[in-house]
């Protein structure tokens, strides 16, 4: 499978021109619009690129042009509906005296030149944990189907395509970034304004969470670009860097910021692609399971380098109490079921393709190389 690096470079160029309402250069000879469109679709940024494609002298053939236009229109429709749903929920929260913070895409899209440029899979809020039952009933009254999902306190869905996630903290307690952030509502001052330092730290750490998890795509680099553009001069750099140091992502943040600047401000392309760029292109919009497994092994090695393969396998075979309680909530009440839950977990994973892949990755010496 080719990496389509030049196609990605041209896609980045189209996006940069769309953001600045500039005239894009024509597609390079020998490159196909189909490949560029697919790269954009894989990263959920084809809609932005379309604003530049419309200005090209040589356009895609009619069928692809309509497909690309339709993709753009569908993101507009979805954005309208998500914005309306967000407004509806915020109003209901206010009426019910439920304080909430909007996080992730819902907030970040306001930093983009046009909010519909920034697609979202779901609408995320943070509320106080004691308000979860009230929030669930409120969402059901609005026509949502609600359920709890591991890592999310409430997951709600309303047809045709509105997903809502209600959280009670910035990061799940199993996340390595959970203890880095201050409690969510401590970031709001007496006038109800969200601290830009905390907002900046959270969103960058959220990008890091995905990057060092399953990977993240072009959309996250765009987020970093707009975060820096809007807040770079206003944040307390010493303060925010202390958090990035505590989270061990200081180097990552610097590299990400430099990449975002190069892609979307300077528009530079040397024809050589860094490991970070290749990894981002390969990760697509939501990352890959392959990345996620490799990164988990790498982080484990960082903290347990001696006999790490044996230790990793033992840790996976015998996870700690915290992980078992997350996977089997019944254990909180019935600890006696622990051996049976453990056996269930082992037999469920035994022979599965995913476990086989994980073992392959652990045994592969290349896993510990730099991200590639």
């Amino acid at each position, binding site marked *: 499978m080719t990496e389509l690096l030049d196609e990605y470079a041209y896609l980045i160029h189209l996006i940069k021109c769309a953001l600045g309402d500039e005239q894009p250069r024509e597609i390079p000879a020998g490159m196909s619009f189909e490949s560029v469109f697919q790269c954009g679709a894989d990263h959920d940024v084809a809609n932005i690129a379309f604003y530049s494609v419309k200005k090209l002298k040589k356009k895609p053939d009619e069928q692809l042009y309509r497909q690309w236009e339709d993709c753009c229109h569908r993101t507009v*429709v979805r954005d*309208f509906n998500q914005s309306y749903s967000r407004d509806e929920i915020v109003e209901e929260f206010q009426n019910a005296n439920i304080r909430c913070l909007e996080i992730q895409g819902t907030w970040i899209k306001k930093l983009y030149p046009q909010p519909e440029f920034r697609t979202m899979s779901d609408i995320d809020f943070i509320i106080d944990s004691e308000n979860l039952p009230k929030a669930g009933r409120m969402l059901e009254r609005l026509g949502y189907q609600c359920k709890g999902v591991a890592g999310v306190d409430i997951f709600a869905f309303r047809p*045709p395509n509105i997903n809502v996630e209600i959280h009670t903290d910035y990061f799940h307690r199993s996340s390595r970034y959970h203890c880095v952030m201050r409690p969510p509502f401590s970031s709001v001052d007496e006038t109800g304004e969200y601290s830009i330092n905390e907002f900046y730290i959270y969103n960058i750490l959220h990008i890091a969470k995905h990057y060092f998890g399953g990977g993240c795509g072009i959309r996250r680099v765009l987020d970093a670009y707009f975060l820096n553009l809007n807040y770079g001069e206003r944040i307390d750099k010493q303060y925010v860097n202390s958090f990035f140091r505590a989270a061990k992502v200081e180097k990552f943040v610097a590299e990400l910021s430099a990449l975002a600047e190069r892609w979307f401000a300077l528009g530079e392309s040397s024809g050589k692609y860094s490991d970070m760029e290749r990894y981002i292109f390969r990760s697509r919009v939501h990352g890959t399971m392959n990345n996620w497994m490799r990164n988990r092994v790498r982080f484990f090695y960082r903290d347990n380098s001696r006999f790490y393969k044996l230790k990793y396998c033992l840790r996976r075979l015998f996870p700690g109490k915290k992980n078992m309680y997350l996977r089997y909530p019944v254990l909180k009440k019935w600890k006696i079921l622990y051996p049976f839950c453990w056996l269930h977990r082992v037999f469920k994973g035994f022979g599965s393709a995913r476990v086989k892949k994980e073992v392959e990755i652990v045994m592969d010496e290349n896993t510990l190389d730099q991200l590639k």
Partner: protein
Amino acid sequence: MKLRYKFVVRNVGGKPVAVAVGMDNNRFNGMIRLNQSGEWIFKQLQEGPISQEALMSRFAAEFGITEETAKPAVLSFLNTLREGELLDD
């Protein structure tokens, strides 16, 4: 006469666009691109039930033309909405 679904009108790329929202987005999942006069008529319909005659009279007053001149433009737009099953008469 009124709109069948709840719509939001907003500028996208400098041009007004209407999209059905909330539960109505499940029933009409498309996007309507409007020009200046279409946007004005749409907003009148959003405000509540209105007769065709009242709409034409207001349109003529808004754009400084006679009702005779307004009639084809207004009817054409309303018929487009009717064909899309977006209007309840």
